[in-house]
């Protein structure tokens, strides 16, 4: 069975580009704090979502809606409304992280298929089976901290479909549990849908040297011909003990393209591409690349060499935790 390519879309144009480029499934979010990419100018209003889903279905693709932030006390209705609207838009599944919201969706929208977001950080078979038994979760997006062997071990002990990230930005923390951004800005991906919110980011370039500031703090400085990273604290360059370096992680992108055969053997159902904040150009290029890879695998051809380095943060790529070579 062909592995499913799950592709990001931050705008209706990106959704159409993804579908035309061969995405089996597209994931997106409403234009509010219910999803973890709540950026200016991004995401879908209800009408755009309805039209986007109809377009995808007409072309044989599925759409998932990420409602994967954690409802704030007293404001749960915003998240409840998002789940109800997702169902009325005829979405194929919702991607949820919060236990309370999963419970709400299971009770009030039992016919709406539920996936567990990477934000829930479900990293072993016991917790995944708990989500399946309690909330009838059909698929789990695994956090980017597992090796291929660990993923295989999980799949051996659960009937729940697994979806893993194969390309795009990396988070060093267990997803759903990172509050680094809030220390500098007061806002975090978990509660507000934004890591390093744009209105707290400031760039200054002087004589080719680019400074990035977040919440008033300089978090990295790159020289004239050095690639620029995203302005996140986890990719910041800090000084300590007379040395400076990337304390948490280097600015690189995940690219597990060459591991797709191993991921298939490990029982993975779907391959996820990160980047709802990226352009339709990115979406089209990355989807075509990965669709070509899974089709080659299915046909028994060798995996093609990708051309995605220039699209990667830091213009460098890693296989991340899938190959824990440091062990």
């Amino acid at each position: 069975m062909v592995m499913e390519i799950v592709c990001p879309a931050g705008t209706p144009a990106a959704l159409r580009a993804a579908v035309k480029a061969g995405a089996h499934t597209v994931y997106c979010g409403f234009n509010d704090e219910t999803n973890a990419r709540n950026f200016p100018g991004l995401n879908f209003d209800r009408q755009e979502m309805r039209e986007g889903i109809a377009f995808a279905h007409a072309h044989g693709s599925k759409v998932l809606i990420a409602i994967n932030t954690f409802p704030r006390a007293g404001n749960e209705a915003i998240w409840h409304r998002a789940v109800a609207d997702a169902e009325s838009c005829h979405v194929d599944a919702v991607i949820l992280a919060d236990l309370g919201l999963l419970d709400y969706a299971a009770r009030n929208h039992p016919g709406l298929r539920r996936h567990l977001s990477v934000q829930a950080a479900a990293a072993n078979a016991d917790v995944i089976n708990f989500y399946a038994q309690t909330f009838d979760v059909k698929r789990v997006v695994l956090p980017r901290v597992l090796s291929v062997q660990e993923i295989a071990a999980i799949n051996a002990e659960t009937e729940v479909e697994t979806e893993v990230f194969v390309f795009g930005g990396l988070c060093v923390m267990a997803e759903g549990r990172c509050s680094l951004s809030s220390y500098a800005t007061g806002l975090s991906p978990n509660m507000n849908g934004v890591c390093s919110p744009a209105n707290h980011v400031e760039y200054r370039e002087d004589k080719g040297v680019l400074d990035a500031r977040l919440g008033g703090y300089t978090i990295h400085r790159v020289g004239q011909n050095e690639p620029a990273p995203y302005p996140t604290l986890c990719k910041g360059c800090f000084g300590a003990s007379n040395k400076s370096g990337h304390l948490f992680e280097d600015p690189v992108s995940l690219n597990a393209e060459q591991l797709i055969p191993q991921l298939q053997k490990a029982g993975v159902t779907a391959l996820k591409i990160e980047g709802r904040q990226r352009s339709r150009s990115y979406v089209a290029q990355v989807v075509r690349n990965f669709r070509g890879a899974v089709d080659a695998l299915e046909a028994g051809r060798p995996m093609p060499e990708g051309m995605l380095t220039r699209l990667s943060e830091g213009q460098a790529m890693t296989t991340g935790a899938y190959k824990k070579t440091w062990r």
Partner: protein
Amino acid sequence: MSQSQALIPLFPPGLARVLRVIPLAPLSLSLTAYSQKIAKSHPSLFRRLGEFDHVKFVLDPVDLPFVICLAPSGGVPRVTVTRGKGDGVARISGPLAALIGLVHGAYDGDALFFSRDLVVEGDTGAALALRNAIDDAELDLAQEIAAISGPFSGPLLHLTAFIQRHTQVYLTRPEEAEAW
């Protein structure tokens, strides 16, 4: 869509020197009329700008001797071309070919940022909103000009295609490949 992001072509320095002496007022008026025409055919672009639809942006083609100040003005945009630094809450700088390629969806904005071909200064949120709104609008600047050029539209599009072939600048929206 472009297959990968190759080197960004620069505007010919000789032609840029000529632009140092051209009068800018007619250019401003023409670009304002042109952008208002685009605004009429792409109203969603301004909706997507949200809270930033009344701020001013400075677009700085670093290989040209002027900057372009864009005021969306809630859907009735005004464009001012100036040889000064320009006035706006956010400045987006890069080679003209990169800025035009972004408008046409040929390049990815984050990738241009990683490679330092694009620099954003000032209100990053405003710049992000503009980038996302334009990316979603699926604009084709050559087609928009042709639409108001009457009998000259055909030759104009041929000329645009000729220049694009010889300069590698995305003057039109790249053709999308056939659906998978």
